[in-house]
């Protein structure tokens, strides 16, 4: 793996969510929906409680997991479609599908953009571009298309 430039020094590589410069480690990393994180942690919290292990590691892990879960639950969309992992996977696949028409034909959303759209739920293209700056490259029509896909998939 190529080492990422130390972000704490004033060097060339600057991360910027606006331009999707997230660092080489995140090129193929999957960005999660908050619902996914909350559901997953909910599952795991039940896991820990039923396991008979009383290791110190488990106690600390349980505390961090509980706090992270609490954080995600504040912000997750109330959305039954996304309660199951299957729904999340389908939505993710649909949103990453390359556009089949328009000036940006063949281009698709990156994982970071997909998660941002689903987590932030902008009402329209203008709002979407304001809160997810890296969408600037897409036409408003393209962004409306993505928003429609997201809404339909969530049964709205």
């Amino acid at each position, binding site marked *: *793996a*190529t*080492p*990422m430039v*130390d*972000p*704490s020094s004033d060097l060339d590589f600057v*991360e*910027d*969510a*606006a331009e999707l410069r*997230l*660092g080489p*480690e*995140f090129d193929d*990393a*999957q*960005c*999660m929906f*908050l619902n996914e*994180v909350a559901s*997953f*942690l909910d599952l*795991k919290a039940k896991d820990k409680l039923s*396991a008979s*292990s009383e*290791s*110190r*590691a*488990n106690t*600390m*892990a349980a505390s*961090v*997991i509980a*706090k*992270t879960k*609490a*954080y*995600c639950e*504040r*912000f*997750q*969309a109330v959305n039954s479609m996304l309660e199951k992992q299957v729904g999340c996977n389908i939505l993710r696949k649909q949103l990453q599908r390359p556009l089949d028409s328009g000036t940006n034909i063949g281009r698709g959303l990156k994982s*970071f953009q997909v*998660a941002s759209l689903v*987590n*932030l*739920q*902008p*009402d329209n293209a203008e*709002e979407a571009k*304001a*809160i997810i*700056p890296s969408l600037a490259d897409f036409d408003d029509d393209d962004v409306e298309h993505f928003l429609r896909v997201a809404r339909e998939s969530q049964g709205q």
Partner: protein
Amino acid sequence: FFFVACLCPRALLHGMFVLVHVRDTIKLPPSCFSKDFYDGLKDEINGRYTNKVLPGIGLCVILYDFVKVGEAVVHFGDGAAWVKVEFREVVFRPFPLETMVGKVEKSDASGLLLSLGFFSEIRVPPHLMQQPSHYMPEQGLWVWRTEDEGGANLDLYIDVGTDVLFQVKEVQIDQENHHQPPPIAVPRDTRVPDADKDKAKETPEPRYPMRITASLQGEGLGVSAWWEEG
């Protein structure tokens, strides 16, 4: 008095959780042999990674799933089983320009310390407060001096314990080795002891390996009550 039109009013403000591939060799002590193998492995991984910062990557939360699990090799001498694993870890990793909500944990002359509950190294320095802001040493609070609709002075305080909307300005995550590829899966506390001693000489105060600089500047940022119509 102010009303934010540009920020999505229902915006679900958050930081990014990412699935990261990790490769490691996990030591399963004999005491784990009675457990189910994968449970034991999972517990050891979580014990090692949860709440630790992966160099250059982010804060580990929990094991998501196994990608590859090798055979357990028992070494002479310690009786433990060593297992090569590849897994995906849920990692908390915010990026610049993300907007999030945090609670004010500390307020002093150097600025604010914000917390998300599971992560608390978020600092708002004085120059990234709403301008103009100043520090009131008697109360230990920061106050933004602005104007109300009538043009009169309006002092808006930031109390400890309040929730504030902030924008990520910078994320600093320590790298272990600047001259070699970073280890693929070495949580911070498994560093070689010598490196620790050297670092201790240079920086007597250990810093948390992941630090966020946050900004309260901009419409809609700061205490949300400031921006509600009324």
